[in-house]
């Protein structure tokens, strides 16, 4: 096996790394703005449905999809972390060590973002969407 990956593999590896690092944060940001925004604006307009869907279902979608995206980022981070454990000989150690640091940061941060999404989403089970 060659120690130096080709350009496509490097691109794929880079994209995977950045998805691992930023995926959870972006998913949580989308979840927050979608779930909070939809809930506050719909309730302020005096309705509890958006088109054919009940408001609760729309908020649930804004919880579940970002949670899945965060789980994906978490798995990607775990993969990067495993792959950087034993780099092939001859490979420049700077990017490997830096990637490993980013992978550790990504694993823990994705866990935190997942926890926030799940905790916020749990409120859906107990609170009606427009109760003030």
């Amino acid at each position, binding site marked *: 096996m060659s120690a130096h990956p080709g350009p496509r593999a490097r691109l794929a590896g880079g994209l995977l790394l950045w998805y691992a690092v930023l995926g959870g944060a972006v998913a949580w*940001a989308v979840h927050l703005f979608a779930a909070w925004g939809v809930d506050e604006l719909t309730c302020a307009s005096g309705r509890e449905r958006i088109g054919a869907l009940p408001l609760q279902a729309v908020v649930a979608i804004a919880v579940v999809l970002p949670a899945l995206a965060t789980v994906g980022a978490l798995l990607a981070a775990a993969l990067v972390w495993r792959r950087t454990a034993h780099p092939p000989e001859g490979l420049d150690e700077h990017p490997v060590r*830096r990637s490993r*640091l980013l992978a550790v*940061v990504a694993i823990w941060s994705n866990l935190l973002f997942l926890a926030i999404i799940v*905790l*916020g989403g749990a*409120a859906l089970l107990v*609170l*009606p969407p427009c*109760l003030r």
Partner: protein
Amino acid sequence: MSTTAAPAPGASRQDLTLLEEHWGERPSLRSWFSTVDHKRIGRRYLVTAGLFFFLAGVSALTMRTQLARPESRLLSPQEYNQLFTMHGTAMIFLFATPMLFGFGNFLVPLMIGSRDMAFPKLNAFGYWVFLLAGLFMWVSLPFGAAPNAGWFAYVPLTERVNTPGLHLDVYSLGLLFLGIATTAASINFIVTALKLRAPGMSLNRVPLFVWAIVATAFMVIFALPALNLDNAMLFLDRRFGTHFFDPGAAGNVLLWQHLFWIFGHPDVYIIVMPALGIVSAVLPAFTRRGVVGYPLIVLAIVTIAIISFGVWVHHMFATGLPRLSYSFFSAASSIITIPSGIQIFAWLATMALGRLVLKVPLLYLIGFIVTFVLGGFTGAMFALTAFDQQVTDSYFVVAHFHYVLIGGAVFPMLAGIYYWLPKITGRMYHEGLGRWAFWLVFAGMHVTFFPMHLYGLFGMPRRVYTYRSEPGWDAWNLVSTIGSYLLAIGLLLVLIGVVHAIRRGRPAPPDPWGGDSLEWSTESPPKPYNFPVLPEVHSLHPTWDEPSRESMGAGATEDRILAEGRRTLFTSELDGRRERVVEMPEASLQPLVLALALLVFFTTMLFAWYPVAIAAVVVVAATIGVWLWPPRRPERELGVST
């Protein structure tokens, strides 16, 4: 003391002469106004922010004197409103962030092994704007026209019909003016940390203080536009009769609060984050080991910076929004305590595993941990909607945020002042005086603010200029006032200690503490060019590591000496690989001229002298044009090479 003489430079005598010639500034009035040296600018930030801290502190003492007894008549309600508003506004905007940016300005280029900030002229411009914006706001106080509706200036109270006069125009224009400085400084920090790191300083070798400053700078870039938008809309509502916040014309009063706190809560971390970076920078020298859990602290810095943008509605738990939407912010507000806790445990583990050297900076770090943890504890209580609604707008809130901000920012700043004073001034401080100051500050802080938890729970509302005698309020208020004087005496001793060090302190060696980061491998104070030879970094603790130190000695290649011209080295963002040599700008009066033109613009907008404001805009545009005009010199002469 680990070192008593400057390390032998790897540059020849001729190189050193050339470096001095290109980077040195002869003392003169012109050089005072035109300097772009990050160390001089950093010192100015520290002194100016200290001056604004003094003014805000005197405001606080006056208010505490008023509140020492019930129904006191020392201040009128109007004067009290202006004092508490200027106290909060100045502490947040004119002291905390600029003071920490002052540390950043002085230290970031030294810590990353560079010769200056990425944009030295922008750096000077940021300082002048900060100074002028601060004066713009403070000058309104003696004229009775200072902001008077709290540092968060809620509408509809701040609309013209409810608060006539210039008060809130000073607030909105002053903060818009100041925002230019903060934004400029943030861009500069980001580019400096990404492009000017010494060769070999990959992301996993970046000092934690630099991580913290960069995260803070990103937070400013994303958070400040919300505040600027808010203030622009408030000014338009007040001056030109728009209706952004007028429900009668389809405006929305909660829009102010949303935008303000989208900025405001990240701003708590904008203030605290660099201070936590100071803690991570100071600790290794006084525990004789590196900070435990470097990757986890980086994780904490990054996640706090991101999550802080999703907690703002916990400042609005009493506004009647749907409870389900509160839950998303309540979850984020609870989880953000985890990365904060990670840092605290990492520092405690560092202390437990290291060998403690109990000097004044470490005393302040211990004081920080005690105070900040107490503030964080009440912060976690506020994340719970039901508790928050019970104590909102009471003195409990005042107690909480003073524990967070004094504990989380002022204590680390004081640690940083004592730690880097030898590097900044070239003089050592008096240890005994420093210890007295610490104990007075620590005791004064807790005597002042702990009782506020109690009389807050007993029902005393915040922002009242006086109160009727109530059981549980009178005595504790007197205790708070006594504590505030104790705190003031402690801070006065800090000032005396700094002045004493500058005037009578013994000369400081390059590395009096045995620190681990690169600033300790320069002279005290550093030469104008910082490093005779730009270092090559081989580890996270370059000053403790032989190959990194040797890289600054004999045998350095020309691309790390760069004596021909005012030049430094660009490296890659992630791995710190050499990219190219760049020429740095020389001293210039353009930053001052541009800042003065902006002052004229904002002053004339305040007094509605619109033709003069238009003229000021023309001067601003012309100055920027001259600034950006490309120099007519060949590339070789510019020192640009690939």
